[in-house]
């Protein structure tokens, strides 16, 4: 098998100075290019902690995270920021856009914030990506004036605009009605097929999880099951 896109090795994460709480107890996880995986587990199981560590927003207390073979524990904050900008895409819950900015400006953020000066190319790519999520006519709308489903499509466009190898989605369909949730899920699935972008989706929704090719379950900071689903075969 080819080298894993993401390798999590023995990751431990403790919180607290005086009373130490262990959120992750030595997690191992590999994700390969093109995988479409769900991460499930009850509240407080360590899903978000693991996602933050994989997303390079947090560092493990012990263990290593390798992204395309690069050991991220050796990188400083600046290098991590660059890696987040170029190699990773983030989809948070639907209200995690910048409300004062238009849809196209939100999609431009990862590139613009990283490079500094905007270019015509940058804007064109953002508009194309908005068109790909079906929101070409909403490009100049402030995101606070879009529906929840539309906002989440903008968020996916923002995550995809630099064609990262790995997209991390934290409850992307939470707080959405069934129809919007379906549309958002389909969109991610399509990008997964079209660009072989790897997705790791944290979800509470068993129906969503069932439609992912692989379901990883985490309970009390330990991975308790990791199986391929019929959808993935």
């Amino acid at each position: 098998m080819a080298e894993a896109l993401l390798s999590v090795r023995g990751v431990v994460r403790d919180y607290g100075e005086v009373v130490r709480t262990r959120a992750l107890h030595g997690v191992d996880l590999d994700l390969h290019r093109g995988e479409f995986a769900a991460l499930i587990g009850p509240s407080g199981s360590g899903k978000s902690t693991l996602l933050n560590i994989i997303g390079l927003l947090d560092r493990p207390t012990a263990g290593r995270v390798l992204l395309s073979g690069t050991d991220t524990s050796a990188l400083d904050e600046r290098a991590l920021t660059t890696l987040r900008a170029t190699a990773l895409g983030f989809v948070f819950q639907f209200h995690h856009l910048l409300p004062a900015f238009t849809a196209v400006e939100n999609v431009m953020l990862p590139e613009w914030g990283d490079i500094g000066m905007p270019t015509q190319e940058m804007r064109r790519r953002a508009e194309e990506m908005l068109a790909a999520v079906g929101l070409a006519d909403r490009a100049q709308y402030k995101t606070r004036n879009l529906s929840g489903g539309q906002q989440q499509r903008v968020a996916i466009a923002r995550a995809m605009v630099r064609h990262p190898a790995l997209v991390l989605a934290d409850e992307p369909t939470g707080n959405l009605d069934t129809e919007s949730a379906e549309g958002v899920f389909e969109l991610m699935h399509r990008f997964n097929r079209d660009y072989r972008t790897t997705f790791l989706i944290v979800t509470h929704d068993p129906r969503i999880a069932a439609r992912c090719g692989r379901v990883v379950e985490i309970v009390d900071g330990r991975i308790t099951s990791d199986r391929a689903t019929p959808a993935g075969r």
Partner: protein
Amino acid sequence: MPFAWFVALRYLRDASGQTALMLAAVAVGVSVIVFLSALINGLQASLIESTLGSQPHVTLRVPREEPRPLVAPRPGLAIARLRQPAAQRLRSLDQWPAIARAAARTPGVTAAAPTVSGAGFATRADARVPIVIRGVNTDSFLAIIDLRRSMVGGRFDVGSGHVVIGSTLATDLAIGVGDRMRVTSTEGVEDVVTIAGVFTVGTEAVDQSWVVTSLRHAQSLFALPGGATTIELKVRDVFDADHVADDIRGRTGLTVESWMMLNAELLSGLAAQSSSKTMIQFFVVLSVALGIASILIVSVVQKSREIGILRAVGTPARRVLAIFLIQGGVLGVAGSIIGSALGVLFAKLFEVMTAEVSGTPRFPVQVDLPLLIGTAALATGVGLLAAVIPARRAARLDPAAAIHSG
């Protein structure tokens, strides 16, 4: 537009209420500073101007005569000493044309005028009043003290038996332009002169005693043919007068007085006024800075999730820092433009409202470009400085924690 500028301006525009509040804080602060400075600078300038309206910046005169010992002291000789101060009489400066030329060449000096100044009496009918006789050369004198601007009757003419006198003196003697009066110097020399003009400089001592005549006429009144008792100087920077005076004193050994020495009380009053102005400015600046800083801190807290998102999707911490610094700087610049306009408006309004019936301002204000530029630079600096704490807070936010907050 660079990313940090774009985000900063968008945030300012989006949070219009907060922005208006911060702008108002800067504008009010700047307008207070501009108004206050304009008023105090104007007041000081007019005080200094009226002081210097009848006074040369620097005056050179003959040193006081010191008593000389009759017997030179030497070891082994006991001398019973009786010290008898010499009575001072009017004397001419030795070699005054050379001194005047040298003084005029001193760095910072723009004009030099030889004068003969002495006391005397003016007589008309039964009235007899003490006067100060000032013998001058028209051109050089007017370059130092421009009496032409102070004329209230007639014109400045000191040729051929003509004199110009102070208005109070004219009133005391009940005479006017074209009238004649008798002057007697302390040397006992008498002459009859014709009044060519009457002036008011606003300094009572001058208005009630000055009789300005020609240098030659004064020389004959005081029996100092070809002499000059003082040399009066004008300097480029009036506050440099002390240095110029020290310089000339060191080189000539003459008694050299600057207007600053003669008006030390006025100057210390002005200095006290200036330092109270500085105090007020300091506290205004401090409260403006605190206002901006606290509102920006609230804004950072409100926006922490957005900042977390920016950081997560790859915006470096330094760019987040820049976003909030730019907001502070922009507020400083914009606020100081508004505030300067308001301050100038208030100052001019105040000047007009407190003017005398004739329209002459009682409190002339002085608004100049250096004041406005200085205040704008100050406000911008304060805006930037006030933004430092909020900006650092924003840049140090932990993105993971910030995203999940709220």
